Every structure is written in C-alpha cells, then in structure tokens.
C-alpha cells in the first residue's frame, strides 16, 4: 500500500468525529475520493461516492472506492430511504442548482446529513466585495465568469434555511485555515460544517 503525503484536513477529521466506526456513508460529489479514502482508513466506513465528472470518477474508482456516476441534480432515486447512516455533501452545496431538493434527498436517504460549504460571510470575502470585486480566494478560487458556484451563502443564511425547512442542526463547527472559530463565526469563519437531521423524522 502506498502512503501519499497529504496535508492535514481538519474538516475531514471533524467529519470523522461525527461518524460512528464502520458507518455506512454516502459522499455526494466525492471528487477524487480523498474524503472516503480518509474515512475508510480511519473508521473503516462502508462508503459509496457519487460523482458526475469523468476524470474525478476515474480517480476515485482507481483509488479503490465505490463510485456511482450520476448527476446530483437528478436526485438520489437510486438510493432507498434511510439506507445510510450519514450522507455527506462536502464543499459542494454552493455548486448545486437544486439546493433545497438535494438537502431533502440527503435527509431522506441518510439518518444524518453532513453539509460543509465556504462561508460567503467570511470577512475576507466581505472585504473584497467592499472594494468592489467578487471574492476570489483559496476556498473560492474561481472568477465570477467561470465559477461553478451558483448558490453561495453565509452561515446566517444556512441557519435560516434549516429553520425554515424544519431541519435540526445537531452540531455546527466553523473553521478558518484548519482551525476552529468560535468568535463571530459568520464573520471570522471560512468553512462552515453542519451536522443535520430531519426534524420530521424524529
């Protein structure tokens, strides 16, 4: 087995801390499968990834994870109700068109849902807007004209969305540069991480 040197991902570690050992996990928009690899190695999760992009799909499958090629926008019709312990949407929410539908589908398929996204309310983003430009940063690397992100939101926005949609926030953690942020998270936090469950199902 080859060990590749990888930078420590605090968000991966937090996601792992929200999962039981051996959990059955569905990772939507799994990319090259790095998160699932990490969770397999650390928690022996039984994992499946969903990925639309050919190159990512191939990278994920080659690395030994299960990857189902499909477009999230079409929903999760191939997955039974409550058939996963946890469904994860890691830094993909902002690129999804049918945001509300996807979150509902995740809550249908998983007992729990983990959503992470770049916080648009982060002060560095705000300062770029104040200077008159759309934010471009490490977590939002695209220009306004080529970004895949269509539904950027702030922590406040997502809190409100959960409240309106009757979704319980079990836990919320905010990171900046791999470190937890507790003081004024909507201003100081770069990456928002939510652990959710469906209120109506409880």
């Amino acid at each position, binding site marked *: 087995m080859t060990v590749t040197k990888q930078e420590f991902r605090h968000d991966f570690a937090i996601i792992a801390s929200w999962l039981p050992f051996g959990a059955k996990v569905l990772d939507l928009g799994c990319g090259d499968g790095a998160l699932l690899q990490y969770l397999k190695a650390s928690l022996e999760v039984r994992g499946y990834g969903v990925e639309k992009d050919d190159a990512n799909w191939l990278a994920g499958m080659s690395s030994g994870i299960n990857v189902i090629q*499909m477009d999230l926008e079409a929903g999760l019709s191939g997955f039974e109700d409550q058939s996963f312990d946890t469904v994860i949407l890691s830094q993909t929410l902002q690129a999804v068109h049918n945001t509300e539908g996807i979150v509902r589908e995740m809550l249908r398929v998983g007992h729990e849902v983990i959503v992470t996204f770049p916080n648009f309310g982060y002060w560095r983003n705000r300062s770029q807007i104040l200077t008159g430009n759309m934010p471009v940063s490490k977590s939002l690397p695209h220009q306004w004209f080529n970004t895949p992100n269509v539904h950027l939101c702030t922590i406040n926005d997502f809190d409100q969305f959960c409240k309106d949609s009757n979704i319980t926030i079990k836990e919320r953690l905010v990171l900046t540069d791999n470190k937890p942020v507790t003081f004024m998270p909507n201003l100081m936090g770069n990456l928002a991480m939510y652990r959710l469950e469906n209120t109506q199902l409880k």
Partner: protein
Amino acid sequence: MQVNNSVGIVAPQSAHFDAPLTLKSGAVLPQFDLVYETYGTLNADKSNAVLICHALSGTHHVAGKYAEDDKYPGWWDNLIGPNKPLDTHKFFVIGVNNLGGCHGSTGAASTNPATGQPWGSQFPVLTVEDWVTSQTLLADYLGIQQLAAVVGGSLGGMQTLQWTIAYPERVRHALVIASAPNLTAQNMAFNEVARQAIITDPEFHGGDYYAHGVVPRRGLRIARMLGHITYLSDDAMGEKFGRKLKDTIKYSFDAEFEMESYLRYQGDKFAGEFDANTYLRMTRALDYFDPALEYNGDLSVALKKVTAQFLVVSFTSDWRFSPARSREIVKALLDNERTVSYAEVTAAHGHDAFLMPDPHYHAILRSYLDNIQVNNIQVNNIQVGGKA
C-alpha cells in the same frame, strides 16, 4: 499506427462433455462440446482467469488472429492483449462459444446422437442459466475453481450477472457492460420481429432446413438489419450516413442511400455466416432472462446471495440497453450493500459503444482490472518461502 500488443496467432480448442446436461426447460442434452480460446497463462494457483461472455452474435474468437493475413482479429481484440486494458501478461483470458452457438459448440446444426441427423428444430431452447452452467463445466475442465472476473457486454452482461447469482463463490469480480436485468417489452418486440423474419422465411422449414440443403437467408438478413438499427443511436447513424446518397435519386427501391447499402451489406454478411436456429435461441435466451422473476420482480432480493465485486458500465446513447437499466442493477447491489462502481460513459455510438475503443471507457476497464489482485508474482515467493 501499428502497436505490437496483440495476443498474436491463436487457435480454438474444444472440450467434450459426456455427462448429460439437464436444461432449465427440463430438456436434456446427452452430451455436448464447447469450443473455446484462451490467451495468456494460467498462474500456479489458478487465480487469474477471466471469462469473456459473448453477446448475440459473438463467438469464442475474442482476440488475436488465426492467420497473419486474417482481415479482422477477434471481436474484442481492442480490449484484450499484452498491455491492453485486459492485460494478458496478468490474466488468463477465456473466450467460449455458447452452447447452441454456430461456431463449433454443440448447436442445432450439430448431429443429434439419437438420430444421426442434425438436431434442427429438435435442439432445445437454451437460457442464460444453461449457458452459465455449461461455462462452469468448462471452468472445471480447465481446473479453475474461481474466476478472477467474468466480463460481458449486452447479453454477455446478463451471463456475467447470472454467474454472480448462481455461483457466487466462483467469481470475484463482475464487469457488467451495456446490459440489463431483463429486457423491456420494446426490446423483446425487436427480437420477435427478428424471429418472425426467420420463421416465416420459406426456406426455414420449421428449423430443419439443413436436411433441405438451404438456409433461411432472407429472414436472417432482415433480422440482422433490424438488429443493426437498434445497436446504433440516431445520432451515430446520422453521423455515419446521414441522408447521403450513393449516387443520385433513381426513383427505385434499390439501395440508393448509403445507410441502405450498409444495412444490406451487414445483413448479407451475417446471413452467410450465422445459423438461423442459433439466432432464434440467442434472442429467446435474452427474452427469458429475468432473475428477479421468482422474487416477485424484486431484483434486490434476487441479488442477495451475490458476493462478487461489480463494475457496471452503461453508455449514454445506448437506447437498447439504456443507462436506466444498468442503474437498476446498481440499485439492487446498493440495496445489498455490495461493492460496486458504476460508470455512465458519454458515447455517441449507441449499444455498439461497448465494443469501441473509446479512451475513457478503456481507461475505466484498465483501471478496474489493474486493481484486481492475482498471485502472479507472489505465488512463487510464498512457495519458495514455505519450502525453505
């Protein structure tokens, strides 16, 4: 570009089976032969065997050539060979002509030992289950207890699926490509039209045309033409032929459009080399395959005992075995929490795409097959260590 990664010159072999084989229909084949080819070398612990299941008109001649000047190699030569996606340096690959076929395995044109005459109409109707059972007998004959993988496209994918259902302990990996868990009514309807073309050909003689020294060419030809339409996508046909004329409009019913001469050529070629009784039985096997049937149509229950790891592949423009049908297989595997990856390849060629060397498609197969563990190198080390 000439790349020297062919398995080279190959020769078919034949295995004879004396024990009577009871078929799903209840009919019994008193004895039979299976003709097959192999490429690569079976390793010491026989853990590197890969079986290729063929589709409707396929054969055991999967890779290589019989002679240097053969015009065409085996039907899946672009996949199989040294350093090809299914690498014969690593794997021992087996191609087999299915029972009831017309390329050397026992079929309707073979001699019925009871009568000394060709079986003809008396040759039983076979099922995918029967084929797989006969393939396990060939594996036994070759001394292979467990296959590293079974690979099949279309009808071959159905056989692959059946292997994992009926003989879970004998297959580690299943590559189910451009296939389906059963045929839709529309799909079966194409088969029915093809069969009617053959059966109503005056030279069919109820299936006993061998005795009359004729072949129902006309029926076979139409059956094949119809098949070819369904194997291509509308776009692929449009791109290949469009409305192109061979010459000018002649106000006749000759092959004036290029598409027409293509279909006629394919039909003629097929009618000259394929057996009508085989065609009838192959399409029937397709129609009958439905592993979920005995479980109230619940494929997830049908796949409960499956243990193999799966790669399922479909092609976006394949309307005869559409991606939606492959996703049914994937869903049933997910319901059983099996190891499965699913690729939906963007391709313009329709059902035929599974035979094309599309780079992404071949990268998928190569990558998946590369990850399959076989003991090619380790075996020697372990043996040396153990004896020391």
